[in-house]
């Protein structure tokens, strides 16, 4: 085995029988091993100022907090956008699925409507009869005296105490 082979073993830290003995005898390999050791020590000598560690930690924390804020912003934006989309969708879909809206009727109480007969004065137009004037012999309109008719008043109570439906009908049942 020549020195090049020994150097390779020294550099790769391969344990081999006879290496110690060779190093004791060979100045060149001893120098080679010493140089490698010097380089190894120089490599291991790393000095990092304490402020550099603090700076890294600070930067990492700031970045994490900034990312958290960005994530929160995007989350709330997405929630808002989803809510808007949902409202829009519902407002577009609902009218098309529903039957045409019937006019809202007041809710009529379940119990039978209370019907009151209330005398009320209703002016009825007097009926005119064509009559022959006795003295002049001319035709003259005779106005029959106005008849006092008592209309039928129907009151229908609803659930809302402020709303009462009132119909005025005559004896024949026609609405007045």
């Amino acid at each position, binding site marked *: 085995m020549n020195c090049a082979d020994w*150097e*390779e073993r020294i*550099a*790769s*830290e*391969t344990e081999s029988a006879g290496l110690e003995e060779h190093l004791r005898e060979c100045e060149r390999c001893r120098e*080679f091993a010493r*140089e*490698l050791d*010097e*380089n*190894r020590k*120089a*490599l*291991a*000598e*790393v000095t*990092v100022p304490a402020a*550099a*560690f603090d*700076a*890294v*930690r600070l*930067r*990492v*924390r700031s*970045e*994490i*907090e900034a990312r958290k804020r960005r994530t929160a912003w995007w989350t709330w934006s997405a929630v808002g956008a989803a809510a808007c989309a949902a409202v829009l969708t519902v407002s577009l879909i609902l009218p098309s699925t529903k039957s045409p809206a019937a006019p809202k009727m007041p809710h009529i109480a379940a119990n039978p409507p209370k019907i009151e007969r209330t005398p009320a004065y209703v002016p009825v137009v007097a009926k005119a009869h064509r009559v022959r004037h006795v003295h002049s012999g001319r035709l003259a309109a005779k106005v029959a005296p106005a008849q006092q008719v008592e209309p039928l008043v129907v009151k229908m109570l609803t659930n809302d105490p402020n709303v009462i439906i009132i119909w005025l009908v005559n004896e024949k049942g026609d609405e007045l």
Partner: protein
Amino acid sequence: MADFRPRAEGAGQSAGLLERAKSGDLEAFDQVMRLHEKQVLTTALRMLGNLQDAQDAAQETFLRLYKSLNRLPDILEIKSWLYRVTVNVCNDMHRDRRRRRSEPWSGPDPVSTLPDPELAWVHQERGQLVEIALKTLPEKERAAVVLRDVQGLSTREVAAILGSSEVTVRSQISVARGKLKKFTDRYLRKRL
């Protein structure tokens, strides 16, 4: 497999910290960073050769750790995981920097506080030379020699981190050390 287990007394405490960090406790994550910052920053500094880039790499490594906290099965994995990610981040940055071209080296600073000025010069110069020589190594050789000689990991542990066999790592370390020696020899012999 390589054993990166923390010593018994620290393991329970670290596991508690990790659990708190996983639940979003930023103070606990800060403590996790403190436990591993030396490992990460010194590896990055040796891999990249300057403090500013090393800090950027350390920051990226810890941010990746934060994102991956819930995927890490336990505290025992963190040390080897951090070495692996630090090496990957540094390799990415090194490639990127090579594309942009770094400024040329201007030579070591001769000022020293060691008693023998000649020895001090050589000592300081060697430190700077190996730093420069490291940058000339292929990334796998550089990573292997940094983990072995700077972090003091065994060949087995280095192999586990780099995903290579022990034989490959041994060979990479041997070749890298040989190149570093040639580089320092060439410069120091010219000077002395």
